């Protein structure tokens, strides 16, 4: 157990966690409002959408791929689902079914194209982002849906306590969705054989093929799951926004990628964890939130975020150089 702890201390996640905890402690003392349950809940709510997408993206990255098209997939999913419930009385089941189903289908299409075209997944999914987004804007004429059914606007929420003044703490759909996505990703990656196969595919695709793991099937799991989370995320996003705006989400894909990479996932594939992704997301959220609470002009937040991100990726690269060198040595020696 002790050696396990020591091994953990050497991992990227541990260092990231240390930085995040330090920042947390600093912000708790330096600002009046940071250390409160309400602020925590607010943060979780506003980061639910990118967070859920990050939970999906980390699966694709672990499997050695990359998906850029998920914002367009989410936009299509929410547009289809919300249009449907505006016209027919489908309820929650219909809403979720249509959004998740359409997300899943588009994800599967991505998987087939990535596997079959054999060109870099980033290129395929950039192309598909444009295909999906263009189609959505064409079919919707760019029009928003501003009137949502009452039951959807009200959403699902539970009061889980109250502060000293009697203001309630509310557990909403966003927080539940975020928790659900991370739980599902964790189950998939760490508790199923499929998760290990995905990791194997990302770590050494040729060897995975030789063991008999099907690249197409695993890509369908990874990109399909990405589409599934995009569908799920689109429902909670539309609920909190109170409307569906077709061009609202596209353009945020690189922010999500940043959170996943900050969490230690390697674009070379095979490396990445649920906990790391969550901490990466938390770090970005806290930097953002902390700067505002510290009174830094919101106009400078991107600048600081960019700086934090660059520092982090430089550190990760520095650490990983040795590992990569070790791997290369074996390959060279064996060849």
């Amino acid at each position: 157990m002790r050696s396990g702890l020591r091994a953990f201390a050497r991992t990227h996640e541990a260092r990231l966690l240390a930085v995040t905890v330090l920042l947390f402690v600093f912000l708790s003392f330096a600002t009046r409002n940071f250390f409160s349950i309400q602020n925590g809940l607010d943060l979780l709510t506003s980061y639910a959408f990118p967070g859920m997408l990050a939970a999906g993206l980390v699966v694709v990255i672990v499997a050695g791929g990359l998906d850029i098209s998920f914002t367009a997939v989410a936009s299509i999913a929410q547009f289809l689902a919300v249009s449907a419930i505006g016209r027919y009385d489908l309820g929650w089941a219909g809403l979720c079914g249509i959004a998740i189903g359409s997300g899943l289908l588009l994800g599967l299409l991505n998987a087939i194209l990535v596997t079959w075209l054999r060109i870099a997944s980033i290129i395929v999914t950039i192309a598909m982002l444009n295909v999906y987004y263009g189609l959505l804007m064409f079919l919707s004429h760019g029009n928003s849906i501003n009137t949502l059914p009452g039951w959807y606007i009200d959403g699902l929420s539970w009061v889980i306590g109250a502060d000293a003044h009697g203001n309630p703490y509310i557990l909403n759909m966003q927080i539940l969705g975020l928790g659900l996505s991370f739980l599902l990703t964790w189950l998939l990656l760490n508790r199923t054989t499929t998760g290990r196969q995905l990791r194997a595919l990302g770590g050494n695709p040729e060897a995975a093929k030789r063991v008999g793991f099907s690249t197409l099937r695993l890509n369908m799991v990874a990109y399909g799951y990405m589409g599934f989370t995009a569908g799920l995320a689109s429902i909670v996003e539309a609920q909190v926004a109170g409307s569906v705006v077709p061009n609202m989400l596209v353009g945020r894909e690189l922010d999500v990628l940043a959170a996943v990479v900050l969490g230690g996932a390697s674009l070379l594939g095979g490396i990445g964890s649920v906990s790391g992704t969550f901490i990466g997301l938390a770090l970005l959220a806290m930097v953002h939130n902390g700067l505002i609470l510290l009174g830094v002009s919101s106009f400078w937040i991107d600048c600081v975020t960019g700086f934090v991100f660059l520092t982090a990726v430089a550190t990760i690269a520095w650490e990983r150089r040795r590992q990569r060198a070790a791997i290369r040595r074996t390959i060279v020696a064996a060849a």
Partner: protein
Amino acid sequence: MARFLELRNISKRFGGVQALKSVDLDIEAGEVHCLAGENGCGKSTLIKIIAGVHPPDPGGTILIDGEEQSGLTPAESLRRGIQVIYQDLSLFPNMTVAENIAIEHQRGVRLLRWGPVQRIARSAMQQIGVSLDLDRHVSDLSIAERQLVAICRASANEARLVIMDEPTASLTRREVDALLHLTLELKRRSVAVVFVSHRLDEVLEIAERVTVLQNGEKRGTFDARDMTSRRLGELMTGRSFEHHVMDPLGAPTPPVLSVRGLSRSGDYEDISLSVREGEILGITGRLGSGRTELALSLFGMHRPDRGEILVAGRPVTLHSNREAIEHGIAYLSEDRLSLGLVMEQPIAANVAVTVIDRLLGRLGLVAADARQDLVRHWIGELGIKIGSPDDAVSTLSGGNQQRVGLAKWLATGPKLLILDSPTVGVDVGAKDGIYRIVRRLAEAGLAVILISDEIPEVFYNSHRVLVMREGRITGEFEPHRCEEAVLQEAVDA
């Protein structure tokens, strides 16, 4: 003994290349069988067909336990107990030792249980008597340890046949002995083992039967007891070679490069050597003996910790390989595919890359005709057979690729040429061509350091041979004064 595997009339064509031509092969349960042949003789293709990675061309049959297999897939081959340990080991560096060994256990779609994974890994290690930390990542292991993981994985799955593709290439003698011991252990459990190797002596130590392939055709299966490594060599190459050692250098010539007390911790210790104009100095030793690391230091790519490098008698400090090139040192890497040449790019670009800054004409632009002349000159000079200089290097045969590698370095006008394993992956006939070029260059006054782990290569093509082991020079031999076996012994010691 019962026949485990029978291959009948196996052929395989890739595009215009006939990789295998009507090959038959039997493997009996519990036998140790050696598959021998030169690089490119079809060994790897045959293995991949047995493993179900490639289907054989129509007309061939594969029988496992007497049952005919139609459409053998990787999964089916594994299920029937055929395990291949590929040259690159096929491990997952991002996963733990236990997960790698029990990767078969993670097939299908279900919840993962760590208990069985650990148990499978532990019992596999016990069976063959090794112990490794199950929770370490494979990326943190040494090459020998990784090899053990690969063997454990093969034996974890109730293997009936384990095929090892060049398993000894990167091992020290002690590790090779351990591996041979493991093989006997597998045999005791009546698992058949097929060794694929070009290291003949090791193979003959342990194999019972030897099958020789040459240019995709089977030369025959022989009893290993009646086989000598010389005869095997002749079978593999299809001709007998009359080797002549080089005559000693005549008149004394000035030294081109000398090294005194050169050390780099972890790589090599206290190296002193000197190579003269017109001399071919052989350096041999196993992988990991420090030979390549020493060469990289002479080429300015790895800074030594201590010691002196003298070029033409003057001490120099080499900060980069660019400075080494300025001092007239050239280095042809052992790893032609990923370090020696840029395989996807045109032949012309590869020849010109070392001297591109010397080809500038008006306005600082690359003079197209100067570049063309340079490329033509070296293609003619070294007799490189090409279609067009604009074809990718990867379209050439191994021998011609290596000549392109020589061309790019000769273009720099070097005084010392360091050749690191220059005939890896080159056919026998083409090997001779390269030796002839190297000898001719030396006769014209070039100093050459020839590094190789193939002992005959350095023995018959050097004026002097240094043996390196564990980072030190352990012996110096002059081929015209000693026997090849003496050198062999010095390397194995």
